[in-house]
């Protein structure tokens, strides 16, 4: 009982220090808030930021679409070229890709089952 009282007193003392630290932090941050002036630019400044960002997003979209289209065209061209010019290689590649996908899926599935 006595020990519990001592522990309680120590705990209260600890809490007091903890709350004092929190208070110090709050006071410091409040002082920063009040004493560091923040200048808010006019509406035009913010409109410019929005316009510039939208322009940048548009440019990015166009670039990504262009890269995607070129890559897709290259793949389709090479596949069609193989199909009409060297059909043997085309069918061998088809077989290899199918086997690879099946093997990869099986290994992933087995890993997942063993993992759980």
């Amino acid at each position, binding site marked *: 009982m006595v020990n519990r009282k001592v522990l309680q007193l120590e705990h209260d003392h600890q809490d007091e220090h903890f709350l004092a630290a929190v208070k110090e932090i709050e006071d*410091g941050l409040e*002082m*920063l808030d009040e004493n560091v002036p*923040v200048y*808010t630019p006019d509406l035009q400044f913010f409109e410019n930021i*929005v316009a510039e960002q939208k322009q940048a997003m548009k440019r990015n979209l166009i670039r990504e679409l262009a890269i995607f289209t070129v890559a897709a065209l290259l793949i389709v061209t090479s596949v069609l070229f193989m199909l009409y010019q060297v059909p043997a290689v085309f069918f061998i590649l088809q077989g290899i890709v199918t086997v690879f996908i099946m093997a990869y899926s099986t290994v992933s599935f087995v890993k997942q089952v063993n993992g759980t």
Partner: protein
Amino acid sequence: MEEKDLIVSAKLGDQLAFAMLFKNNYPFLVKYLIKITMNPDAAEELAQETMAKCVEKIGLFNGKSKFSSWLISIATNLYIDQKRKSKRERNWKAQEEVFRRMKWHLESRNEEWNDALSALGKLKDEIRIPIVLKHYYGYSYEEIGKMMNISSGTVKSRVHNGIMSVREELKLHGEQESAAAGTRSSR
């Protein structure tokens, strides 16, 4: 125009609505960033980057939280990412310089420098940010967890440990001062 209407218009691509939203929330955002970076110049720069990111991500804003909360959650993640990328984990010299300037700035306005700010500045960003969000802005552990993509338990322990460190630092400082005073009086 109310904030909700501005958000709806901004989502539809209205540039003016976006600008008004940003103008209304700019001081709040910059002041928050000053507290976590302790550097007014870096805070303004980061605020502009946050607004640019916001234009990109406005479609993802669901309106459940306040717009200002969403802004500071983007700003927080942007700041943490930038710190990680720059790999300047703890550049003490630069940090000291930032504090020195901030201290000078406050003292020039006849304000006393608060030692808790120095102690807070010595903490890692991942610890300082939850303390500021919890004890200055009053966000709950869950809300801070969502903002920083960590669990509320982690937030709670970071806040607690951070405050303990600040407490220790303040106590140490007090001991040093009293020791120094003792030395002076004995001379």
